[in-house]
């Protein structure tokens, strides 16, 4: 896992969306995934926001890691530094969106604070470190993971619209049936793994 994988950018991109989906294969970003997926519109908003933030933070954290932490031999501080970069990026993004487009701010703004504590963001940065990706690979992996997360939450919110109306046993209502639905989705996504092998 620690050796630098030689990957062509396209397979990395598709692998991060389908075969090693950040959510269904690595279980990252579950908390907001379960609470937000009740509502289709918010799911799309959050999915978009996660994709944007992942694209930016994977680039920023790669740069911080390779130009600051490694030269100064401060790698053990990476958790703190990564989380601060993520918080700062989200904050700056929020201010820029607020200035540039009110409409976008209205639809995206409420999701941004949630993203700081989304483990998918920190997880992607840590995977970039562990798998020793290059800069281009990092950005592709970041954006691809964001799109994969978006795809998963959009699909789940559509399914949940149906299960809400189904006769589910009382104890299984809510999070219980959602977990089982996600289980089936994960099985479906595993079907993709024959197409591409990464890691």
């Amino acid at each position, binding site marked *: 896992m620690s050796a630098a994988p030689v990957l062509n950018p396209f397979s990395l991109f598709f692998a991060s969306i389908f075969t090693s989906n950040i959510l269904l294969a690595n*279980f990252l970003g*579950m908390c907001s995934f379960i609470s937000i997926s009740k509502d289709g519109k918010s799911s799309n908003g959050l999915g978009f926001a996660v994709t944007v933030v992942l694209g930016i933070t994977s680039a920023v954290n790669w740069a911080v890691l390779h130009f600051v932490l490694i030269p100064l031999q401060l790698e053990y501080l990476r*958790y703190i530094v990564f989380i601060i970069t993520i*918080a700062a990026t989200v904050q700056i993004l929020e201010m820029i969106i607020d200035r540039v487009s009110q409409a976008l701010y209205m639809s995206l703004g409420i999701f941004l604070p949630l993203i700081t504590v989304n483990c998918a963001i920190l997880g992607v940065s840590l995977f970039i470190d562990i798998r020793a990706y290059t800069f281009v690979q990092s950005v592709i992996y970041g954006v691809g993971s964001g799109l994969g997360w978006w795809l998963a939450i959009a699909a789940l919110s559509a399914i949940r619209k149906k299960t809400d109306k189904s006769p589910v046993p009382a104890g*299984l209502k809510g999070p219980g049936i959602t977990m089982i639905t996600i*289980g089936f989705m*994960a*099985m479906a996504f595993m079907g993709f793994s024959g197409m591409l092998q990464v890691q």
Partner: protein
Amino acid sequence: MSAVGTILKENLWTNNPIFMQVLGICSALAVTNLLTNTMVMTIGVTFVTAMSSLTVSLIRQFVPRKVRMIVQTLIIAFYVIIVDILLKAYAPDISRQLGPYVGLIITNCIIMGRLEAFAQSNPPLLSTWDGMTAGFGYMAVLLVIAFVRELLGFGSLFGVRIMPSGFVPWTIMVTAPSAFFLLGIIIWVGKTIMNREGAPA
């Protein structure tokens, strides 16, 4: 019942972080394919929750409300780094298998949740106890999941083979979907029992 007992019961059962609040499940699912890893991971989480509850509770009067989130995050990150360094030094194999999930304790919502809900407004010792029991609640559920997954997926417990040699391991138990199914079932069982007791959910 005394406050200490009430907190224990709430965190282990009626308000269990995993199956009642559905918090912190990222790591709950990822590390549960082997019992040993689960044990190490949950001890780490319990340590971090207890210690950061203690710290936040000690300094709660001095931290302005506006910056408390970032202060809490830094406190959590501080303890996570300690856990990470200890693991790397004393259990390098397990550290490698857990990979990024040790670092992801920082974004584990259980810890932040306990800090906000309890440690922020309670005395230090009680807060430590609260953090610790929340960790135990997390540990209990994870160990159950890991028990089933390792037993059926590898035919072993804590790495020791206990199933008869004719046993064919269930491949599904090693992969991601089984974790979702098992957690769904645990939530189901937990909630059903609780509904029967008539506890306010």
